[in-house]
């Protein structure tokens, strides 16, 4: 058993900022992360990739170096390549690393597991060659690998960022097939005044669009009836645009229609979660410091609700301040003094979200896919099957597992849970909030019996 004042799961912006703040307050910190190096997905591999591909990836990415630098602190220990597969309500964390199991326990636990892209079930989305836009970006960050003949499909700022990065890498995408409509844009305008607080982000977005225009990347807006073509792998994309059918030949299709909180860890603890109707996602309920219903367990960053990398770092710092106060390392007054300017910046950072969420809403046809589209990639369950089970009287996502196994494959519902909930909600004429998400049970990540058998620290203790 490894002990520390604060154990953090996830070395993305929230986890790294929290670690740095807690360490500065004199707490011992242990960070666990599944990746071999710090950064999370947004700053994935930034220490290695910034010098090599910094010009392609841009300043928002290389800014991550400011956070990874701060991990080099005598109070911070990092375990990378470490998969957490169980968290108990007393905050003991079971993990696997290098083929061995282990347990870490903190006086406080911070879950900073970030976001995942919202699954985008379309006809053909399981074909080899279809990836998420985020996956393309990870390939570029972690490996310097770019797709040669790619079409980006969906909506949202990440689509433009990835496209611009591909342009700068000398491999522009063949086209952007975008799903947001003119009426989405008109609806978003009432949020524009607030969004102007985040004008830096707006200007950056316009810069990305200018890059795409200059590179001559074709953009199809308000696309409908999107389907990926191919039998063994992607050969093209079919869609309707302006009432006309279109077909593009390509080798890679990159999907994206927003990101959602990664809630596997918080759901496995049976913590209360709230439905955010504008972001169409669930997030754990926390107080303004990130404290959950289990007082020793905190959540910060996108895993607590989507706010982006900068907001995540502020939230991580705020959680660390409260944790330091909890453990007697900081007075109430000092905590509040340090928190005040952060809250203002966090508020400014979040101000643009209603505009973005409304201007780039998730693609309706992927929230309610056609009957023959797979929604559960692992168990290969179609939307039609889910609707049939609902018609037979199946009320909820957990019962649905018994009917047809969606959510019971290796990804444990990460790729289908939200879609299943949306489908059941529509069928029963209620809100996803009422339906809820599939229950999550440990192990959160696959673990071998050998790893459990080789659990170190049974009986022995080490303190950081």
């Amino acid at each position, binding site marked *: 058993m490894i002990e520390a004042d604060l154990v953090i799961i996830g070395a993305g912006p929230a986890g790294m900022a929290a670690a740095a703040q807690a360490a500065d307050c004199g707490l011992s910190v242990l960070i666990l992360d599944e990746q071999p190096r710090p950064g999370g997905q947004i700053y994935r591999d930034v220490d290695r990739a910034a010098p090599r591909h910094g010009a392609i990836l841009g300043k928002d990415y290389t800014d991550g170096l400011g956070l990874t630098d701060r991990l080099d602190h005598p109070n911070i220990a990092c375990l990378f390549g470490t998969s957490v597969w169980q968290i108990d309500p007393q905050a003991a964390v079971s993990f696997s690393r290098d083929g061995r199991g282990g347990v870490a326990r903190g006086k406080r636990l911070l879950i900073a597991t970030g976001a995942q892209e919202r699954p985008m079930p379309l006809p053909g989305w399981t074909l080899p060659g279809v990836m*998420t836009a985020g996956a393309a970006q990870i390939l570029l960050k972690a490996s310097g690998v770019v797709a040669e003949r790619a079409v980006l499909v969906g909506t949202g700022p990440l689509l433009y960022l990835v496209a611009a990065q591909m342009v700068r890498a000398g491999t522009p995408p063949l086209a952007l097939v975008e799903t947001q409509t003119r009426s989405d844009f008109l609806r978003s305008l009432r949020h524009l005044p607030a969004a102007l607080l985040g004008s830096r982000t707006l200007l950056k977005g316009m810069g990305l669009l200018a890059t795409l225009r200059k590179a001559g990347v074709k953009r199809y807006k308000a696309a409908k009836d999107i389907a990926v073509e191919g039998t063994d792998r992607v050969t093209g994309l079919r869609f309707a645009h302006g009432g006309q059918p279109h077909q593009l030949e390509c080798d890679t299709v990159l999907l994206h229609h927003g990101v959602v909180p990664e809630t596997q860890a918080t759901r496995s603890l049976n913590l209360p979660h709230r439905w955010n109707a504008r972001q169409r996602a669930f997030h754990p309920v926390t107080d303004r410091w990130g404290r959950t219903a289990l007082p020793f367990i905190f959540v910060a960053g996108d895993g607590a609700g989507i706010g982006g990398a900068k907001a995540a770092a502020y939230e991580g710092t705020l959680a660390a301040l409260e944790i330091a106060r909890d453990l007697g390392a900081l007075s109430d007054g000092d905590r509040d003094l340090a928190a005040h300017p952060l809250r203002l910046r966090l508020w400014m950072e979040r101000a643009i979200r209603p505009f973005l969420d409304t201007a780039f809403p998730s693609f309706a046809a992927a929230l309610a896919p056609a009957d023959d589209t797979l929604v559960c990639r692992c168990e290969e369950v179609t939307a039609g099957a889910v609707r049939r089970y609902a018609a037979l009287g199946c009320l909820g996502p957990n019962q649905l597992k018994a009917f047809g196994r969606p959510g019971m494959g290796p990804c444990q519902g990460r790729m289908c849970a939200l879609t299943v909930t949306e489908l059941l909600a529509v069928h029963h004429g209620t809100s996803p909030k009422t339906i809820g998400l599939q229950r999550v049970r440990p192990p959160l990540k696959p673990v071998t019996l050998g790893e459990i058998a080789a659990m170190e620290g049974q009986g022995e203790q080490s303190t950081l």
Partner: protein
Amino acid sequence: MKTVFHNLSPDDTPRVRVRFADRELMLRDGANLAAELLAAGVMPFRHTPVSGAPRAPFCMMGACFDCLVLIDGVTRRACMSEVSEGLEIAVPGKADHD
């Protein structure tokens, strides 16, 4: 073979021998296994146990489990694995689950 992915990085990393099914590949030591296999033209990575459909990496962040491969007989996510000398990779297929 058609290039679907290309590598921008300077080729300054030593390459090591890796076996993927019946193919012998020279991949960059210590690099992300899924990325290296994609750059080497490997497609698909596996076939599903349910219908035998072909699959390849989808999320690249350990969430989707579509890049599963067998490394030393253990099912692993290629996107969460790194290249090392002499890696023996088998393709999970329907037979493994029957």
